[in-house]
């Protein structure tokens, strides 16, 4: 029995156990999208609630609010998770619809670059007000 199952697959037993397909990453991308979505759930509701209840914030109030240690830490987490989740979500959309292959790859890389830069810019802004 063992012989016949071996013969019908090119995958090694180790590869099968690790669950890593040709991309060598298994379900990592899918799982990270779920993990970031769970973490973003409370953070996003918190951020939307704050903005909705303090629409008329002056510049001084905004600086004080962003610079508060608790808010700054939560904002940094929100920024990192938001752009991680956004980049991986847009990546899946491009993988599904962008053609031909070079357009797909360049657009995914461009999305990742823009998301990384936006996240860094936002994080720098928070750190400038908090530190």
């Amino acid at each position, binding site marked *: 029995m063992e012989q016949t199952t071996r013969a019908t697959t090119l995958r090694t037993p180790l590869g099968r156990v690790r669950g890593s397909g040709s991309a060598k990453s298994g379900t990592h991308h899918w799982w990270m999208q779920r993990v970031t979505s769970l973490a973003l759930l409370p953070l996003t509701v918190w*951020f939307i609630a704050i903005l909705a209840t303090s629409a008329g914030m002056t510049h001084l109030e905004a600086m004080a609010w962003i610079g508060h240690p608790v808010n700054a830490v939560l904002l940094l987490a929100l920024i990192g998770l938001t752009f991680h989740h956004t980049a991986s979500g847009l990546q899946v959309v491009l993988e599904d619809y962008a053609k031909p292959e070079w357009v797909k790859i360049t657009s995914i890389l461009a999305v990742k670059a823009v998301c990384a830069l936006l996240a860094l810019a936002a994080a720098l802004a928070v750190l400038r007000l908090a530190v």
Partner: protein
Amino acid sequence: MSSVPDASDATMLGRRTDGTPVRRPLSPHLQVYDMMQMTSAISISHRATGIAWTAGAVLMVWWLVAAASGPEAFDRVQWFLGSFVGILMLMGVTAAAWFHTLAGVRHLFWDAGYGYDIPTTYKSGRAVLIGTAVLTALTWLALLISW
């Protein structure tokens, strides 16, 4: 296959590798579905709202960077967000954000293995739509009160 006389044939008509037509079951193409039914409409809207929310994330970055840059930059972003286009954008982002959040929770339940049967799927779909409307209205009510 230039023309398909009957829509139901779309799942049957194919071609062999040498180009000769053949009638056999194929994977159903999008055109055989009613795309406005609850299941498929919410599915594609989940993607669309995810993309739309990216605009909201960009606004967040602008707001934070402006706050760190100085009073003039902050006044500019506050002016834009209070302008007609800004309010329209924020309203769209708020609705998209709530929809994507609620539909996302629905997906997490599916990922955990719950709510797959048709009646539950339709019920949770309706809950997403009603929840989006209610939470968007509440967010803007809070916003107008605090303005």
